[in-house]
């Protein structure tokens, strides 16, 4: 047992750092550290650079074109990227639909979809939640009716992040309305350019546009876009949710957040609060490393990944809360230009003031999405504690 890095790992970390410095646009980097919102290009240009290097699908096995990182490399890769101010990799392609396709898809689907995900030439989004199916996902009602070589899709998805940027959407749809809730669901890939799809923005509490409603009105989807068997989409959904919970702890980004908090600690009464969240991040990181170490030894990420999600999201919220507390009353001015646009205006108050409150408001989502904290605790209670 030790925490020491082997020379090869140290070299790897340096390689990642050098690559990031050479390929991440300074403007994007600046947005990370000043808390501004990214545009589509900030993400795509960076992801395509990673894609060229072969690192974008960094969690994938070699067999499917991943770099085959070991656990330590994966840990270092994530941390160095965060330290250097890279935007987080948008998960819908590489972390979500990609692994579903290489696990449950047929060879033709693998050939057709995986390259675009690996290179980030194609942007994906996720069609899961519906107005009536939030925490209770299996309650979804978007219908897909088979009609010859096609499905005709009707219904509505909501909370669809980046749908306005996406080329494709992966959806859970109901293919058998008579089956029990989890049994009549299928996993379908849909081209966002198909006629009948409408995207409507949902403006968030901080004024930002990340998420959307997506409406399907007689959308014709080739049956070849079905992943796995019809009516067995819930298997894909469960697999994807477990994967999602692991990365969602966002430890490297939280470490970056804690470092910025320490840099603005001119208020002595804050220091113990910062210390407290600093330690929470360390505990979470160690827990994640323990989970990764189990995976290295051949174990799978089990339901205990749920608590990483619970704690990770609470910590993200706490960091945002303390950043706002540090700014004090200067968190009050609402300065959207400072958040959403490139501008040379000087902000009211200190530089870190404009994003403080919007970020605090926005971060409330983290204990809600990807399965709310309450749902995660239900999962742990049932699957681990046997209650």
């Amino acid at each position, binding site marked *: 047992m030790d*925490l020491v890095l082997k020379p090869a*790992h140290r070299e790897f970390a340096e390689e990642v750092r050098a690559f990031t410095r050479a390929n991440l646009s300074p403007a994007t980097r600046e947005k990370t550290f000043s808390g501004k919102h990214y545009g589509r290009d900030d993400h795509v240009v960076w992801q395509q650079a990673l894609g060229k290097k072969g690192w974008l699908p960094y969690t994938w096995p070699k067999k499917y074109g991943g770099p085959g990182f070991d656990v330590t490399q994966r840990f270092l890769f994530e941390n160095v990227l965060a330290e250097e101010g890279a935007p987080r990799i948008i998960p819908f392609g590489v972390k979500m639909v990609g692994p579903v396709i290489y696990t449950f898809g047929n060879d033709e689907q693998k050939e057709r979809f995986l390259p675009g995900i690996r290179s980030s030439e194609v942007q994906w989004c996720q069609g899961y939640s519906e107005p009536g199916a939030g925490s209770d996902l299996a309650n979804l009602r978007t219908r897909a009716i088979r009609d010859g070589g096609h499905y005709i899709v009707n219904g509505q998805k909501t909370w669809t992040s980046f749908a306005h940027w996406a080329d494709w959407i992966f959806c859970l749809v109901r293919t058998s309305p008579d089956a029990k809730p989890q049994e009549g669901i299928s996993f379908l890939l849909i081209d966002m350019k198909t006629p009948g799809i409408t995207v409507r923005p949902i403006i968030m509490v901080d004024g930002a546009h990340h998420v959307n409603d997506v409406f399907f009105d007689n959308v014709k989807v080739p049956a070849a876009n079905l992943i796995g068997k019809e009516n067995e989409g819930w298997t894909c959904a469960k697999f994807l949710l477990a994967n999602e919970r692991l990365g969602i702890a966002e430890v490297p980004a939280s470490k970056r957040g804690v470092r910025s908090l320490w840099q603005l600690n001119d208020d002595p009464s804050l220091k113990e609060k910062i*210390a407290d969240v600093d330690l929470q991040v360390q*505990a979470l990181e*160690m*827990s994640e*490393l323990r989970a990764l170490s189990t995976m290295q*030894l051949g174990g799978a990420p089990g339901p205990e990944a749920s608590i990483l999600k619970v704690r990770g999201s609470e910590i993200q919220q706490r960091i945002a809360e303390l950043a706002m507390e540090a700014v004090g009353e200067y968190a009050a001015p609402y300065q959207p230009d400072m958040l959403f646009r490139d501008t040379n205006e000087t902000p009211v108050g200190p530089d870190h003031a404009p994003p403080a409150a919007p970020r605090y408001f926005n971060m409330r989502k983290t204990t809600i999405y990807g399965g709310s904290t309450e749902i995660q*605790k239900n999962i742990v209670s049932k699957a681990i504690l046997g*209650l």
Partner: protein
Amino acid sequence: MDLSLADEQKQLQDAAERFVRDKYAFENRRKIAATEKGFLPENWAQMAELGWLGMSFSEADGGYGGGAIETMIVMEQFGKGLVLEPFLPTVVLGGGMIAAAGSAAQKQALLAPMIEGKKQFAFAWLERQSRYNLADVSLKAEKSGSGYTLSGHKGVVYNAASADDIIVLARTAGGAREENGLTLFVVDGKAKGLTRRDYPTQDALRASELTFDKVSVGADTVLGSVDGAHPVVEDAVDRAIVALCAEATGCMDAINAATLEYIKTRKQFGVPIGKFQVLQHRMVDCFTNAQEARSMTLMATLKIDDKDAVVRRKAASGAKVQIGKSGKFCGQSAVQMHGGMGVTDELSVSHYFKRLTMIDLMFGNQQHHLTRYSNLAMAA
């Protein structure tokens, strides 16, 4: 980077688990706590035989070349069984300070018999006013002839009644709370002028108040350098903190397991109370807290030998904050979910709760270590 136990360490873990299972069934522990010494000499002898008393010392010092990981492994199991033998004061603190600062002669005279199970120690540092400041020491050691005369008071000295030697932190120079001017003395437990008031503690250990009335000791009883004890003590206490954290993770696993079992079997309103979501979520929070405690204990164990003193101190304080927080949460929640039974003396749950409570107060509580950590982090 590797977080898995080596084969020998797994064997040690199995042996410690077996020891606790065989010797520390709850009713057995109650009997051991009620004996005169408050622990069983035969258990101590067995620990020596198993090599546990020497495992964390270097082979040059007569030990078996292990370290903090081995200490963590046994302390965790001791926590599960609420083991009463004085491993912490004797081996971790006493042995640790002798190994770190003792002369070759002292190691020969003290450490070797300790490893064989023939000597026990106590560490006397706390005074009425000290709280958690290791330098707030006023017991005086004055030069007299070739030796020293010790006068003053020490409080809550664990294992003093059974210790052959008491390691005393005394002031040889400097003013109140000055870090320079502190010296460690190895004082015979039966020295003339040393009187004890013995008592049990809340968590069924044994401790004493010690009064030193002109206790004469030779110059050869000085452990380490005169006036230079503070860094030795700070380091030893940080190691003891990490060991306590491991004990606490064992306590938390045990108290959570007992609570989980209880809410699965206790029925009210016609169903096991574990069917109520409010208790399910609280149980999940307990589970999460114990996981975090385990993670931070592991982190501190792996960092406590770091070359950088700031890294070591931050690691110890960081883990102690987590243990204070998680221990309180798991302890209070376990009592609450056990209902009336939780506040009685009858079930193990209250005994784990008491131990977790006292662990928080030992060598600095959550608040103290949060302050210490934040000062270290800001200075860095």
